[in-house]
Structure formats: C-alpha cells, structure tokens
C-alpha cells in the first residue's frame, strides 16, 4: 500500500468551533496563570490577523479585559485607522489612538529612510512616495534582490535596484515603525498589567516576516500556528466585520501601497499556504503543483525560498544567548 500523502485544497480546512475553543482555553491559561497578567493589549492594523487576535482575546478574557491600540504614522493608510475603529466598536472593547509619527520623527526614521533612498534616487524628496519590491522569483532562478519604486509628485514611476547600503538603510529606518508601536503597546501593558498579544500567522512566524523587537515581540502569539487561510476561516466564524475580512493583505509600512506578495512572499498567500503545508509534510513538488496551480518547477523554487527564509528567520526568533544556564531561574 502506498503511504504517499493525499493532498487537496481542503487540507487546511479547520473545525473552526473546536479550534476557537482550543485557542481560547490555551491563552486564558497562558495569560492568567503562566504570565499572571489581567488581560491583553493588541495593536490593531485593520487587517485580518490582528482582528482575529482581538476577537479571540475578547472571548478568552472578556471584553473588559482587552485594550486595542491604533498607532498610525505619516505613511499609514487612512483605512487602517477606520477599520481599526470599526473592529473596536463591533467588539465593544476599549481603544486608544496613539499617533507614532512624533516618535518616528524623533528617532529620524523618515529622515534616515529618505537619505537612504536618495543614495540611489537623488531626486527623491518632498511629495514623493516609495515602496520596496522583489522581482518575480517563481518564473526563473534568480536571487531575491530588492528594488525601490518611487512615485514623483506628478505621478511618474521609477524603479531602481537597491545597493546594499541603501537597502539596509531603508530597512533599518522603517523597522523603527514596528518598534515604536511595540513601545506604545508595552506602555499600556504596564498601565493595566496586561500581556501583549502578538499577531503573526504561521506564514509570517515561520518565514520571518516581522521585525525583531518590533512586531515580533509579544508575550503570547495565539495564531502563530495557523496558516493564513485558516485565519480567514476563524475570522468568518468569529464574526469579524466583512470589510476587514475582504481587505487585501498589506504591509502598511511604505507610502506607496505594497502587498505582502511583492515585498516578501513570492506567490499569493493562498498558494504560499499550500506550499508551506506541502514543504512541512514532505509533499513532492510534482504532487503539489496541480493542487496549488503552479508548475512543478515553480513549486520547487518556492520550496527553496522557504528554506532560505527559515535560515534567516532563526536569528529573528532567537532569544538572547547566554554563555551558560543561570541557576535558580
């Protein structure tokens, strides 16, 4: 008898009621008993992941023990705040608005980012918008080298490959955004003796799509084991507002709109889900290809990218290293 795994698109289908109960019971135990905190703080972006986490926390701790934060900055889409407010209202939880633009100006985030961009696009300045993008990585064997796309105030677009220094300069500057948000989240966590909920899904957690000590920092991460399509299933079950469920995934970090696919994942998230599942379950690229709607060679490239990103993500997830175990802890 063959032991070849059988895979279909339904492989990621959840028993949503049971999974919700499991997560709710687990995070209640973690927050109240292991962490000894009285509730949860969640930074919400108006996206699906943070919304599902907020709903799960409200179920686990009660809506009176949940605080959601809106932390827009100069480059944020107005939709993020609007949808965040919609979520808080639908859920009936306390919410606070903390514009982090001032913090970011204080640490010269925008100034440093713009200087890095000008090193490759000298005319970049007031009124320009930008984002960084990857090339198409699944149709040929090539490395994931970023380019910057800039839009002039008159609407002209220009794409330039980034030098190492420019790339590192832009990333180091923009990572301040996620770190500033975490400063605010922990302020409220201290204020109310709450724990901070992290909002990565499995794709993000596995592949390192987060900023170390930024959005990667949290006290508990209730959906880090769920594939993106499973997060959508929970959202529908939990009653997350439909407009949030239908919002395309975006990084909301750069002034030009940037999808997660063009910034980090090589294929749309539904396909990425199945590729990660296939990789985790030793499903061959030939077997997975027709299920996911890609060519076997393309699946092979995605598998290679998963390995490459996992290698980089190990540093991002690593706790501080000690020379030896500390007695008594």
């Amino acid at each position, binding site marked *: 008898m063959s032991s070849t795994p059988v895979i279909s698109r339904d492989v990621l289908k959840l028993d949503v009621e049971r999974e919700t109960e499991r997560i709710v019971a687990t995070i209640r135990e973690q927050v109240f008993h292991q962490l000894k905190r009285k509730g949860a703080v969640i930074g919400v972006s108006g996206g699906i992941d943070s919304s599902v986490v907020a709903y799960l926390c409200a179920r686990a701790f009660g809506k009176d023990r949940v605080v959601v934060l809106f932390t827009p900055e100069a480059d944020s889409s107005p939709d993020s705040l609007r949808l965040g407010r919609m979520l808080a209202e639908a859920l009936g939880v306390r919410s606070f608005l903390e514009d982090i633009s001032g913090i970011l100006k204080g640490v010269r985030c925008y100034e440093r980012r713009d200087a890095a961009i000008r090193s490759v696009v000298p005319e970049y300045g007031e009124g320009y918008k930008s984002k960084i993008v990857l090339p198409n990585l699944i149709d040929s064997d090539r490395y994931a080298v970023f380019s910057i796309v800039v839009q002039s105030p008159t609407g002209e677009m220009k794409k330039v490959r980034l030098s190492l220094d420019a790339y590192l300069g832009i990333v180091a500057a923009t990572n301040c955004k996620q770190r500033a948000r975490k400063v605010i989240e922990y302020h409220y966590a201290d204020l109310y003796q709450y724990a901070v909920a992290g909002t990565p899904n499995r794709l993000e957690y596995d592949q390192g799509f987060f900023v170390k000590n930024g959005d990667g920092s949290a006290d508990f991460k209730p959906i880090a084991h769920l594939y993106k399509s499973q997060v959508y299933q929970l959202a529908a079950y939990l009653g997350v507002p439909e407009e949030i469920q239908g919002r395309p995934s975006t990084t909301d970090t750069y002034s030009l709109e940037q999808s997660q696919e063009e910034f980090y994942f090589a294929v749309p998230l539904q396909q990425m889900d199945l590729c990660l599942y296939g990789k985790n379950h030793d499903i061959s690229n030939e077997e997975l290809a027709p299920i996911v709607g890609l060519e076997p060679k393309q699946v092979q490239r995605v598998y290679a990218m998963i390995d490459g990103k996992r290698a*980089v993500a190990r540093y991002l997830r690593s706790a501080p290293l000690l020379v030896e175990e500390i007695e008594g802890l």
Partner: protein
Amino acid sequence: MPVAETVAQNIREFITANFLYGQERPLKDDDSFLGEGIVDSTGVLQLVSYLEETYGFTVEEEELTPENMDSVGSVTAYVCRKLSATAGGNGGRA
C-alpha cells in the same frame, strides 16, 4: 597569475572574511553559497556591491542568478565573462 586565478582568490578571500568569520572551513570552488547557508539574500547584495566596486562593471538584474553567483567557481566564471565582454565593448552583459 592568470586573471581567473586572481579573481577566484579574491572571491574566496571576500567570502571567507565576510561570511565565514575566520572559521577554519575550506571553501571549495563548487560549494553552493546559498545551499550550504554560507550567504543569504542580503549577502548576495553584499557580493554584488563588492563585484561592482572591485571590477568596475554593473551587475544587471537578470544576471542575479545562481548560475552566476552561487559559488567561487560560478562567480569567477561570471566575472571573467563580464571583464572580457566589457573589454570587447558589447555593453558589459555577461
């Protein structure tokens, strides 16, 4: 010393100094940079900057392939092709 040997030695020294951090690891000409975890995607960018600064040509986006960039041997062959093409005046594409 022939050009290819000099280039290979330069590449080996660059990789050893920047990615192996002095580890006593013999770097073979066909060791895969990415496959063996020697260089990550940011490291490829560092390698590209090094090649452009050292040899004075531009690495084109379509040249950022494992065929050109994944081992001491492949980078050496790529650099030699670029230098030869540049000398021949065809615009520097390898």
